[in-house]
């Protein structure tokens, strides 16, 4: 049976407009105070605890969580508006990004009361940062094949294994390790659990992975019989797979999937000036039409989440389309303007172009490679 696509109409009102205005005013004042410089891919590269703490003080981390856990009880559409404003401005939001987007919602849904009280208010105030320990050297797209395992030890677990592509493990406080707590049976997805581990735990080593840009935000995390008390397991042992995949609609459909290179777009528009030839206008117009449609689709997924539905196929679709549009932005830039890209350059265009270009291969890989997403979409559309 072919399914209906669930992209409900976003219901915007005056409050949403006020939130957008408040975020813009905050960002304008931070910009003029010189506390940050707009960068591309700032949700991965811009790790700035001082800035994150300011957002926490505004109530803009974990804003969708209940007030008793430090949140604002805001909607997913509110969070959509907040996050798209932060990304479009190229603000340094990497310190709290993963905690706000998927760790916090995961703790809220599956964590014990003690876990929720201990971590969520600290995350929401911008003082506690988590990394997600998912991929391994032999497990990329095939995540269920992970080999890191936790064995009972005393009244807790001893975890041994290796994680890769762990962003900001060298800065953050905790990591949630996806690991096997029982051997794989008939069902590949059974026996997988999520366990919270401090990043300074004995037996845990963080090693940098330098990217082609020379940047360091990814790490290897090596665990050698790292002890975690029993209460640090998230949800029931063995239910980690459904917990992780259940958050994918949050993780996949957000505006970071199509706005990572947006600061470069704004700079290109600034450089070409108000009087453009037809060729320039057509390139800008086609890009604008893509971004406008993507904004609506992403906001529609947020609207569906607010209505209590989790549309995984639609979320995968938004990420598939969005990351491909985002990825072509450096290419569009160089069709319009000459550049010698240079990271760290004083020339804003040269810098933003280099940032976007060197990050762009990752756009269609992280959070589900395009090929994986398209499989999810096709199966959702009835291909079996």
């Amino acid at each position, binding site marked *: 049976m072919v399914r209906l*696509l669930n992209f409900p109409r976003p219901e915007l009102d005056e409050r949403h407009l006020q939130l957008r205005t408040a975020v813009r005013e905050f960002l304008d004042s931070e910009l003029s105070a010189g506390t940050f410089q707009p960068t591309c891919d700032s949700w991965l590269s811009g790790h700035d605890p001082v800035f994150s703490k300011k957002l926490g003080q505004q109530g803009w981390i974990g804003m969708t969580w209940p007030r008793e856990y430090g949140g604002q009880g805001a909607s997913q559409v509110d969070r959509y508006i907040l996050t798209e404003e932060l990304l479009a401005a190229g603000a340094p939001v990497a310190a709290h990004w993963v905690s706000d987007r998927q760790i916090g919602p995961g703790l809220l849904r599956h964590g014990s009361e003690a876990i929720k009280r201990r971590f969520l208010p600290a995350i929401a105030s911008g003082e506690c940062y988590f990394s997600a320990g998912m991929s391994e050297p032999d497990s990329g797209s095939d995540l269920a094949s992970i080999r890191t395992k936790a064995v009972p030890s005393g009244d807790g677990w001893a975890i041994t294994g290796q994680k890769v592509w762990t962003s900001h493990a060298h800065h953050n406080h905790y990591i949630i390790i996806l690991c096997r707590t029982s051997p794989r049976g008939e069902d590949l997805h059974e026996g997988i659990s999520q366990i919270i581990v401090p990043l300074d735990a004995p037996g845990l080593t963080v090693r940098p992975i330098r990217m082609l840009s020379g940047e360091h935000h990814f790490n290897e995390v090596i665990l050698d019989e790292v002890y975690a008390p029993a209460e640090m397991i998230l949800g029931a042992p063995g239910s980690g797979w459904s917990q992780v995949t259940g958050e994918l609609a949050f993780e996949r459909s957000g505006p970071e999937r199509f706005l990572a290179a947006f600061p470069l777009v704004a700079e290109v*528009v600034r450089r070409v000036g108000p*009087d453009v030839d037809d060729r320039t206008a057509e390139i800008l117009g086609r890009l604008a039409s893509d971004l406008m449609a993507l904004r609506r689709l992403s906001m529609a997924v947020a609207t569906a989440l607010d209505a209590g539905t989790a549309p995984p196929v639609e979320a995968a679709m938004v990420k598939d389309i969005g990351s491909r549009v985002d990825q072509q932005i450096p290419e569009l830039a160089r069709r319009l303007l000459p550049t010698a890209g240079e990271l760290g350059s004083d020339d804003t265009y040269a810098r933003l172009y280099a940032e976007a270009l060197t990050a762009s291969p990752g756009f269609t890989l992280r959070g589900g490679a395009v090929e994986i997403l398209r499989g999810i979409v096709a*199966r959702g559309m009835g291909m079996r």
Partner: protein
Amino acid sequence: MTDESSLISLVTALLASRPLGNELEVSEWHANVWRQLEDTGLSLVGVPEEAGGQGGSIAEITTVVRLTGRHFARVPVAETAILAGWVLAEAGLSIPSGQLTVSLAGDPTFSLIGLGAERVISGSASRVPYATTAARVVVSARDEFGDLWVASLPAADLELTPGQNLAGEPRDGVSCVYLPVQHQDLARVPSHVLETAHLRGALARGAAMVGAAERALDLTLRYARERVQFGRPLGKFQAIQGLVAEQSGEVAAAAAALDTAVEAMLTGRDVEISVAAAKTRIGSAASRASAIAHQVHGALGMTDEHPLHLATLSMWSWRDEYGRDSEWAITLGRSVAEAGGAGVWPLLTSVPAPPDTPIEEIGEGDDKQPGGSPGSGSATPTQLSQEDEYQP
């Protein structure tokens, strides 16, 4: 009007079971569809009741057009309701029964001349939709003082040169020389009416293209499930899954762009950039979706016995009518450039706008439709039916 889902069921029922192949059967089916659209009042939805229309909003008539696109109904409902009916109402002229069509160039190709107490019109237009089947052709004209007019001309009084677009719809040459025009068929209009007509035409073709793209996707999904090669259905192959997923995404993006443009029409805000974005995005989706649909269907999709060609020929025609996607992209891109580096983000986030924010006067107050409630209801679902009445 009725709510959106019952409108969809009503029109879908009316458009079901289009025959394929036999020319006589097909033309009888089309005549019958038109009769039913007229009988049910659907052919004048979106035109104010006081002007002789059926009431309802641009959202409802756009849904009807989207469905005619989805079901390959070759009927001038967009011309009659979205264009001719609307412009006659704007001009305060009466709305005759029957099929109506327009040639509303902003720079008119017809001239109006006073001859004593009488006025006569001369000029010509090419590729006028359904002129050969319409009762009236509403044209824009300029008089000797440079003022703009619309004239409602009986098609029987015009010289018609039949033509077709790729989809087989009438696109006819129309001309007249010193044709007397009755006083009650003539009204002066401000230029923004003709500009808005162009936007409405683009929106109508966009809606029809979304319908055709939905149908092409439906056919592609069905074929990929049923066609077996190398012992497996096509849909089992990762390469085919990639194509089908991309096609689905194109349809979703096109539908999103359409919904945004319809909402802009309802509120009267950001109409030009929303329509420009819609015709651009839907046009590029039509190109890519047609190519993928044909690739998945193999050679069968290129035959006239398989219905896919009805969808792709439609998209290939409509993407070039009322402005190609390239032209609309240029319009939108100029707005982006004018907004500047600091203004591009506020421009992109101005739509979709919350419904109760103050309305900025854009000089096109004609878009305030009765019955519009943009903040309510849910977007037209991309409803893909398992059933398909065609058996190639």
